[in-house]
């Protein structure tokens, strides 16, 4: 007996290990993680760099020329500011072929050549206006892209260190640097910006972004505020984020009339913006040194999808224009432009830029310190656009001496790159030291070699070349500088390549390996159900119940292939649960037994579905993929006094009922010593919970109670302590009183009641009612167990001890409980408030444990531990005991198989949809929840089989 017992525990442990390894492997390939560092760059940091702290000497006298805000007395930050104001117009989901002339593409399409003003400017004046093809890094969703653009990094799905729940960016970023350097920001349009940067904007006009069907509200709001703001002088940076193109793509696709209309509307808006800027661009004017940037945050496919990494999604565009007419032409080595003739025969060029470089380049242009975590480099072409000749007065000189202008530009650029390279190297060093999953030492040493080579060259020769302004001949000097620039650029490119491989690319091999391991474990686990003790083993064909179970499990697994079913997973589970309930009802009518139980079960399912509906409306309020429809609302006003009264009373009443039920159970069972006392402890916990809740309402006049017992944290802490003591007692009783384990029921009751009190406490008021519904439904499942078998005698040998349908019902019921208790598979569905029940200060591990108990309490913890309750209590003979023990093992294995099947389906779905629009918004959170759930289930099955078997 003992050996078999151990073997079963080992089997459960084995599956826990296999699942963990498989999930770990899959996750390594799928969920790329990056650690957010809390450091910020400051102006004074630059003195640590080997670069020139003062501007290049021979141009020192001109540094006050272009700038109104930066005069000689104000210390320069990292680089010399070259533009004063920046207007950033973000057109969401701007494809490259919306802006670039159709000559660049195989054939002209209706949506091309609509933003004609940008093309006109770029072809007429290629030194002050330029079209770039911008490369965005996946995930190409607006939030991740805005984060990437402003931090200059590569945001992944899980940026570890993300603030608890709120999306606000805590990493150092461009916007943050602007604020630190005293720049004034104005924002209008997409409210994602205000979520990311809650306090940074001096003025903001946010508009709700999640109503995809609304093409105009955000855009009209933007336009309304944009033009007046352009005439004002109380800002330095203006951000206007238009959403129309993105929404038109999502709803109608790219090849549609609304899309073309939107683009034409943008063209007129941009024309007007450029008119205003140019009218004020004269010397001393408001926009004397302003840069206009029109950019997309990501592209979109022809269907309007984005989120993945296909060429259509990552290729977006950027148009940059400086109001200064005379900008530097850069050496051909750094020019990435490819030029074509457009239909009118004019030459038009498109250069190349990476969005990664945006934060660094703009920081350099504005003369502020670079964001700490930026890994981009200052783009030469964009930088050249802003940096016109340093002194407006000597542009005649430039006309006959373009060589000297080039030299001047290169000298500046090399210094900027030097600071830039130093900053990136600093970030990478700090990152690999502080992150758990840093870079490999090989990669790090390669990067370090490249950097130190460039740096040595800099300090040895180039620095002196720059300091010594009247030294060598221009041509040798320029070639030396260019060499230095090339060295820096090779450092940047190999670093970015490394970072990309680490942070943006799925590893399909790992993903497939993990998936295959899960499938194999699934097969093994299904075999484990039937394998084992021969006397009780079953090897007959599928019974009706088993076939139906298989069908339902497969339906549920397949439902994960569609995003819509994942969104409404609670409803799907409820639908399937009700279906099994109806089947059971049919059988119970046929057998003429348990009809009452079947009806009560269906009634409980209906109660749960109402609760799930309420949860769904909460989810819809925050989800960007769902529209809220308060259709379930009954015609009662929510603040009706009777209703509020009922809401206050009902939870307390259900706790009281739970106490009564527990009392009945304990009173009925024969004296079993310890188990009984543990259950009595739970009754005390329940009572404390009821006391806590009634003192929180003002109906009973128990307000003063909290003061008497010393704060509202006292009761929850007592409940936790009682729970821990109970668990400790149960574990020690299991270890030392081996002979005393004949009666399952009382042991299960003791364990479940011990676990339930913290769960109910954490779930707040709805917890007790749900626990009651759960209890009732579970009781009905137990009573209805086996009604679908042909006859009693038939049941003896075929599947005698395993009833798959009731295990399935139990699983579905617990899934319904997850959704009915107001959870959903997204991080904003976590109830962070629950982590602070009983505690005021934050301790990561403690609060995480509480949050886990709250999230998975009903759906996994109580469900796994309560599974033995499904075995009906008939015979108490010792022989029946061994048989039951085997049955329990089978039930746990079946429970594990059902959970693992759904997780495998989720993983398959995530693999298929890894380039899907909603992969980061929907599939990945679902994946995380499922995977955590599976590991927890396996772990608890291990514990439960150690406890029961």
């Amino acid at each position: 007996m003992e050996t078999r017992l151990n073997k079963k525990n080992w089997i459960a442990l084995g599956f826990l290990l296999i699942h963990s390894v498989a999930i770990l492997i899959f996750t390594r390939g799928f969920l790329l993680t990056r650690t957010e560092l809390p450091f910020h760059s400051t102006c004074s940091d630059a003195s640590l760099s080997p670069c020139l702290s003062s501007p290049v000497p021979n141009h020192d006298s001109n540094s006050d020329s272009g700038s109104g805000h930066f005069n000689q007395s104000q210390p320069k930050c990292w680089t010399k500011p070259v533009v004063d104001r920046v207007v950033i117009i973000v057109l969401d989901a701007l494809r490259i072929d919306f802006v670039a002339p159709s000559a660049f593409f195989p054939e002209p399409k209706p949506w091309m050549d609509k933003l004609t003003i940008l093309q006109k400017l770029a072809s007429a004046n290629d030194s002050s206006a330029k079209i770039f093809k911008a490369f965005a890094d996946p995930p190409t969703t607006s939030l991740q892209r805005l984060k990437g653009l402003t931090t200059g990094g590569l945001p992944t799905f899980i940026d570890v260190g993300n603030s608890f729940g709120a999306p606000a960016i805590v990493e150092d970023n461009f916007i943050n640097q602007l604020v630190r350097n005293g720049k004034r920001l104005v924002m209008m349009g997409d409210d994602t910006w205000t979520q990311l940067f809650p306090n940074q904007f001096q003025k903001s006009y946010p508009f709700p972004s999640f109503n995809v069907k609304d093409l105009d509200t955000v855009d009209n709001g933007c336009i309304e505020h944009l033009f007046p703001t352009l005439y004002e002088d109380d800002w330095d940076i203006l951000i206007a984020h238009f959403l129309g193109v993105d929404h038109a793509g999502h709803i109608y696709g790219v090849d549609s009339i609304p899309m073309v209309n939107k683009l034409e509307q943008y063209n007129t808006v941009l024309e007007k913006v450029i008119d205003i800027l140019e009218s004020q661009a004269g010397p001393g004017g408001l926009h004397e040194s302003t840069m206009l940037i029109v950019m997309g945050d990501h592209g979109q496919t022809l269907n309007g999808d984005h989120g993945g990494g296909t060429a259509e999604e990552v290729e977006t565009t950027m148009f940059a224009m400086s109001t200064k007419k005379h900008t530097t032409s850069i050496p051909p080595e750094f020019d990435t432009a490819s030029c074509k003739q457009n239909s009118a025969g004019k030459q038009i060029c498109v250069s190349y830029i990476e969005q990664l470089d945006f934060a660094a380049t703009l920081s350099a242009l504005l003369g502020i310190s670079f964001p700490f975590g930026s890994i981009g480099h200052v783009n030469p072409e964009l930088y050249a656009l802003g940096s016109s000749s340093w002194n407006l007065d000597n542009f005649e000189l430039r006309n006959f001496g373009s060589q000297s202008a080039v030299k001047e530009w290169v000298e500046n650029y090399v210094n900027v790159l030097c600071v830039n390279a130093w900053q990136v190297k600093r970030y990478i060093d700090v990152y690999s030291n502080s992150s758990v999953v840093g870079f490999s030492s090989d990669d790090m040493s390669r990067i370090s070699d490249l950097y130190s080579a460039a740096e040595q060259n800099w300090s040895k020769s180039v620095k002196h070349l720059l300091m010594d302004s009247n030294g060598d001949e221009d041509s040798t000097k320029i070639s030396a500088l260019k060499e230095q620039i090339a060295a820096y650029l090779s450092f940047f490119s190999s670093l970015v390549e490394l970072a990309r491989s680490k942070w943006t690319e799925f590893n399909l091999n790992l993903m497939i390996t993990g998936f295959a391991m899960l499938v194999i474990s699934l097969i093994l686990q299904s075999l484990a159900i039937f394998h084992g003790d021969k006397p009780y083993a079953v090897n007959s064909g599928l019974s009706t119940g088993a076939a139906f179970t298989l069908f339902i499990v497969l339906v549920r697994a397949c439902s994960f292939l569609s995003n819509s079913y994942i969104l409404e997973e609670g409803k799907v589970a409820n639908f399937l649960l009700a279906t099994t309930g109806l089947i059971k009802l049919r059988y119970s009518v046929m057998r003429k037994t348990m009809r009452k139980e079947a009806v009560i079960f269906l009634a409980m399912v209906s109660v749960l579905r109402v609760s799930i509906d309420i949860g769904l409306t909460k989810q819809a309020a925050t989800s960007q993929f769902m529209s809220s429809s308060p259709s379930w609302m009954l015609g009662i006003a929510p603040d009706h006094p009777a209703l509020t009264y009922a809401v206050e009373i009902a939870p307390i009443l259900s706790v009281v009922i739970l106490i009564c039920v527990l009392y009945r159970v304990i009173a009925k069972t024969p004296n079993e010593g310890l188990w009984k006392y543990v259950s009595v402890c739970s009754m005390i916990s329940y009572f404390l919970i009821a006391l806590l809740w009634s003192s929180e309402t003002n109906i009973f006049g128990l307000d003063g109670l909290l003061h008497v017992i010393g704060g509202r944290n006292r009761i929850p802490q007592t409940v936790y302590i009682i729970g821990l003591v109970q668990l400790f007692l149960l574990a020690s009783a299991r270890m030392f009183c081996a002979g005393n384990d004949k009666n399952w029921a009382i042991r299960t009751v003791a364990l479940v009641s011990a676990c339930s009190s913290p769960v109910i406490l954490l779930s707040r008021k709805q917890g007790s009612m749900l626990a009651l519904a759960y209890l009732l439904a579970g009781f009905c499942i137990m009573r209805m167990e086996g009604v679908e078998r042909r006859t009693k005698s038939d049941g003896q040998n075929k599947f005698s001890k395993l009833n798959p349908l009731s295990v399935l019902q139990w699983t579905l019921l617990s899934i319904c409980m997850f959704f009915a208790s107001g959870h959903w598979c997204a991080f904003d569905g976590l109830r962070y408030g629950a982590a602070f029940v009983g505690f005021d200060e934050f301790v990561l591990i403690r609060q995480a444990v509480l949050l886990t108990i709250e999230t998975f309490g009903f759906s996994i913890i109580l469900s796994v531990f309560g599974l033995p309750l499904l075995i009906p209590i008939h015979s108490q003979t010792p022989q029946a005991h061994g048989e039951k023990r085997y049955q329990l093992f089978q039930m746990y294995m079946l429970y594990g198989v059902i959970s693992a099947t759904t997780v495998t389906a989720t993983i398959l779905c995530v693999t298929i949809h890894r380039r899907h629009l909603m992969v980061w918004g929907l599939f990945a959170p679902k994946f995380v929840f499922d995977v955590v759930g599976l590991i927890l289930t396996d772990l608890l099955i291990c514990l439960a089989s150690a406890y029961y078997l």
Partner: protein
Amino acid sequence: MKEATKKKKPVTSIGVCSDASISASGASFVYLITGLSLAVGFWVARNKFSVDLVSNPSLTLCLLWSIEFPIVIFVYSFFRRSPEKFSYFRALGRSIIGLFSGAFMNALGAIALGAPIGTQYLPKTIHWSFLMSVFTFVPATAVFGASWTDWHRVFASMKPSGNIEYMIFSPAYGAIIGGWFGAWPMPLDWERPWQEWPICVCYGAIGGYIAGQIVSLSVMFFLRKHNKNLKLA
């Protein structure tokens, strides 16, 4: 007691078979009438009221069941059990009760499965459950009345005997299963108007109803004939 009823059952059913039986061609005629009345319902909704299931589900469903219901009770009351005891009009009367109780049961089942509750869905749910009741409960009440053993045998044990019981059993289960499958597209994000409750469930139920009729017809034509041949041999 249980044993007794069990033993009795075959006797009664055979007896019934012999006196209120219906031939396969008769069954197809009945099906033709019920199918036609459904079609008439759709036609009236479209041409007289210019509505359809998508634009105005409640009115269309109301028209459908109120046209289908009289036809069904008129036809099925001819096949009532023990006609010597219960008159034709009594059969009509009890099927009206059957309509309401069946609608109630169907509505409860739909709500347990997740049909939206709320005031704006109430008329749709009511009319839908009336239609489902016409498909499932009304023929059975017209034929069996309150004879619980017959109900139990046909619906719970799924052991119909005789053509008329197949005619009740098969379309009724067809409608329920069809409705169950019809609910599947509802959560999908295709944003089609027919995904609203109860439109696609109606389509599913009607489709399942017709499929059930076809199945029962084929059972009658092939299996029954086969059985007869066997018996003759």
